[in-house]
Each structure stands twice: as structure tokens, then as C-alpha cells.
């Protein structure tokens, strides 16, 4: 077993870093590229029942320390996505991310992802900019629990719940997911945000609201992971502002059993995975960690 290998729940990955949902993971070929670049798995773009164009441009802008986006969950729909999955899973483990407006939709989508060969499904209960989806339903622990539990009882693969940080207690959402049967929680999705142009007197994004990602949110994500690790017994997957091995190590030490990288794929390119893998291995050997598992949550002690 390589030093970077991880196993949690029923999943085993050769490397601990995954591509976060929504980042170069809408097509089969792009997912293959991410795995070849060193990602341990790829989480797909969040997929819904029907094809959806997403919001009109502008859907994205840079800000200090990160990005604000409101893509609006564009996706080809779960049926067409079969082709992309068929290409991707030949290269490595794929986590199917799905979004729906109710438990039934989530269950239906997850079942298809399972059919397509997904190693796990990630429920997007946290997108902050799509009406009737994501955080709009994922901010209420009751919904989180009922959706996770509906999905858990209809698929065999592990079910992960991706949580929103736009709440007064992410631990409460995590407990709801655990109670519903989630095998892991993923934190965090983007922070609710808005960008205004002073000269043009308007919010820049067509949807007005969007979500903040990137280095700016790293301390918020680390806190979420730290809190969740203390509140739950299921594993936590950390995401938010990771762009080098040190960021990844910090998340792991805070309690993440694995991590995901989003925005840094833009700033550093897909090679960010290889760089993180090499850096983590060096850090581990310098500090005498034999496995990622040994590092998980060490900063909590």
C-alpha cells in the first residue's frame, strides 16, 4: 500500500485528492485527464434529471483570493451523462455528483449513477445559486436527513452529502446526514457572495448571487472540517481553497480523511494534483507519517 493510499467507508483510493464537483468534470475526456494528472478520483459536475443550460453569462468572475461563480448547475441531464461516465470510469474511480429538488429525484439520479459505475454518489445539498436546489434545500437538517436516507436506501454505493457553510451550524447538518445513512460528508461548498461593478452600477453575475471559492475560503473550510470531525463518526472530505500540499495537509490534520481541489485547477492547472501528491509524500516522510490515515485529525488532539 502506497503512502498516499486511503481507504474510508467502502472506498479505496490510491491518492487522497479528488477533483471537486464542477471543475473540468462535465465530459468523459476531461475527467480522464484529471485522473491522469494525479487525482485519486474525480467527482463529476452535479447532474440533474434534465439537460439544463445554467445561468446566462456572466457566470464567473475573479475576486481577491478566489472566484465567485453562479454557473447555475448546467449539465446535459443524467441520461446523456451515461456516455461521459462510460469514458471516465475506464480511467479510475468516479464519484457521481447529483442535484435534485426532492428526495425522489435524488434517489433516481443516484441509482443511475450507480448503474453507470460510480464508486460513490455525492449529493449536492449546498449549491448557493440555483433556485429550488442545493443550499435552498440543504440548509434544513430535516431535508438533509430525509434526502440522504431516501438515497441510501435505494443504492448500494456509498452516499456522501456535500454540505453548505452558509449556516450557523454545519455540524447539525452533518449529524442529519449521518443519521440519514451518509457514509461521508463533504465540506465545504461555496460561500454566498455577490460582486458589484461600481462604474456599471450592477451586480456582475447574471444571477446576481453566486458562490465564493478559492484560497479566500480556506480558513472557513478548515473550521468546518474541524467542527464536523468533532461532531460525527463518519469520515469528512475537505474542500475549499486547497492549492498546494500544505493546504491539503492542513485539511487532513484538521480531520479530513480525503480532500478535493476546485479553483486551483484554474490557477495552477491539472498538474496541481501531481504537485500536491509529491509535496504530501515529502511532508509525510519528513514528519514520520506512514499513511494519510495517521495524519487525520492530528491537530485536534
Amino acid at each position: 500500500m502506497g503512502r498516499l493510499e486511503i481507504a474510508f467507508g467502502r472506498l479505496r483510493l490510491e491518492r487522497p485528492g479528488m477533483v471537486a464537483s464542477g471543475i473540468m468534470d462535465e465530459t468523459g475526456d476531461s475527467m480522464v485527464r484529471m485522473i491522469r494528472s494525479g487525482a485519486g478520483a474525480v467527482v463529476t459536475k452535479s447532474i440533474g434529471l434534465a439537460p439544463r443550460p445554467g445561468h446566462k453569462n456572466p457566470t464567473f468572475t475573479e475576486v481577491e483570493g478566489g472566484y465567485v461563480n453562479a454557473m447555475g448547475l448546467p449539465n446535459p441531464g443524467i441520461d446523456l451523462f451515461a456516455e461521459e461516465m462510460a469514458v471516465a470510469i475506464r480511467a479510475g474511480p468516479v464519484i457521481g455528483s447529483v442535484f435534485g429538488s426532492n428526495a425522489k429525484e435524488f434517489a433516481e439520479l443516484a441509482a443511475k449513477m450507480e448503474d453507470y459505475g460510480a464508486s460513490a454518489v455525492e449529493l449536492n445539498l449546498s449549491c448557493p445559486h440555483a433556485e429550488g436546489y442545493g443550499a435552498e434545500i440543504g440548509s434544513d437538517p430535516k431535508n438533509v436527513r430525509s434526502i440522504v436516507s431516501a438515497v441510501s436506501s435505494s443504492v448500494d454505493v456509498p452516499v456522501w452529502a456535500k454540505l453548505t457553510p452558509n449556516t450557523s451550524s454545519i455540524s447539525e447538518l452533518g449529524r442529519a446526514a449521518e443519521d440519514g445513512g451518509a457514509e461521508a460528508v463533504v465540506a465545504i461548498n461555496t460561500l454566498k457572495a455577490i460582486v458589484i461593478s461600481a462604474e456599471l452600477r450592477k451586480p456582475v453575475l447574471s444571477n446576481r448571487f453566486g458562490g465564493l471559492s478559492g484560497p479566500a475560503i480556506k480558513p472557513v473550510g478548515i473550521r468546518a472540517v474541524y467542527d464536523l470531525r468533532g461532531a460525527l463518526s463518519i469520515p469528512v472530505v475537505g474542500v475549499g481553497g486547497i492549492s498546494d500540499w500544505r493546504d491539503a495537509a492542513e485539511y487532513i490534520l484538521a480531520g479530513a480523511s480525503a480532500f478535493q481541489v476546485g479553483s486551483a485547477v484554474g490557477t495552477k492547472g491539472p498538474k496541481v494534483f501531481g504537485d500536491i501528491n509529491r509535496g504530501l509524500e515529502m511532508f509525510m516522510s519528513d514528519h514520520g507519517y506512514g499513511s494519510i490515515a495517521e495524519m487525520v485529525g492530528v491537530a485536534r488532539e
Partner: protein
Amino acid sequence: MRVSETVRIIGKMKESKDTYTLEFKWDVPAVPGQFVMVWAPGVDEVPMSLSRVGKIKAITVKGVGEASNAIHGMQVGGYVRLRGPYGNGFDIKKGRKVLAVAGGVGAAALMPAIKETGCDTIIGARSAGEIVLDDVARKYSKNVWISTDDGSRGFHGNAVQLAKEKMSEKDYDLIIGCGPEVMLYYLHKACKENGVDCQLSLERLMKCGAGVCGCCMIDDKRVCKDGPVFSSEELDLLSDFGTRKRDECGRIVELR
């Protein structure tokens, strides 16, 4: 890195009945072949090549729909929000004898490279009224040749046919090109047949422009970040080139 800026429009020129150039003072580094995302508030945001890359930058916009026409409505003294510059640009130090081949408003993307190299230029269009930026090219190129499909000006035929002729007449090391994808597809083929290297600037639907969202994929390459300029060898490996693109939903759309 501040990659978005609201700048003032300092010049507006009519290039043809449906094409305008807007100029702004915007002192950020940019290389020939890069593009920006241009916001038309309340309407859309679209990618536009930089047709000038110095301290004064410009875009040259053909009116084809909502966004481009909204940009045409912008006036000198007004503000426009730009993101970028994005993309890789042309690698023009490599080629010694360069020929630029433009289809229609694709000339915009080539202008900075033409200015920098003084290379020969072909600009093709359906008819005389659609030829743009030939006056600019003429300032920098020794030879500027025009082609029109209807023969209303210059060579009667398309830009690729003309390029083939010039390739066999002259000893070019590198063809740079921008225009409709079918044209580029045949241009790539022509270059291979003539054993001439090429770098072609492609278009795909763009949202982030920054290599994040993955909506602009051509095979496993992001047109916004790994491109928009691809080398001959890269193009060889792109099965989508000239055949397939993706719509807003990420669905495959056949080009032919």
C-alpha cells in the same frame, strides 16, 4: 493578480457595416492571440480576441446577435468591464517566415501577431463588404491578399485555397490562422499536405474563461486555457476538431 477591470472606451471605429473596433487604455500584459471576456450588462458576457495588445488595447466585434450588438451600442467615454487577458496566444518566435490566414472577423485575433512579425496576410470573406482590418494589416504586412467567395474583391475563392497557392509559391515556416472552424479544419489539412507548421485559434462556448468550469472542452483540452491557439501536432490529436462542439448544457453538437 487583478484579472478584471472596468475601463473607459477611448475609441470606436466602424470596420464594416456590421463590425466595430473599440479601443481602451488598459495597461496589463497581453500577448498576440489572447482574448478577454467582455460584459454587456443585462445581456451577456462573451469572449473577444484582443485586436491590439499594447498599452492601448482593442476588440473588433462583428454584430451577430444580442451580445455583440449590445457591445456595438457602447460609446466612447463609456465604461466596459473586461476579464482577462486569457489563453495562451500564438508562439510566434518559433516561425521565421509566417503567413497569417484570417476568415472574416477572425482577422481580429491575428492583428497583434501580424503587427509583431510583419508577416504576409490573407484575409478571406464571403464578399467584399465583409473584409475587415485589411487596412490595419497593410500597415504592417508586406503582402496583404484578399479572397472572397463571390469574387467581389481579390482572389475568387476561399482563404484556404488562396493559402494553398501562396504556400506553394513561397517558403513559409508557419501558418497562423483564425476563422470559422470548417475553414481552419481545411487549413490544417492544407498545411499538413504542404508540410508547413501551423497554429490555429479555435472557438468554443466559454463561461469562466479561466480554465475552471470545463465548458469549453475540445477533447481533453480547455480552449480557454490550454488554447485558444493549438499547434499542428495538438490539432492532430483532437478528434473534436472540425467535427463536434458542446452546447450550454454540455451536450455534444455535431459541426457537420
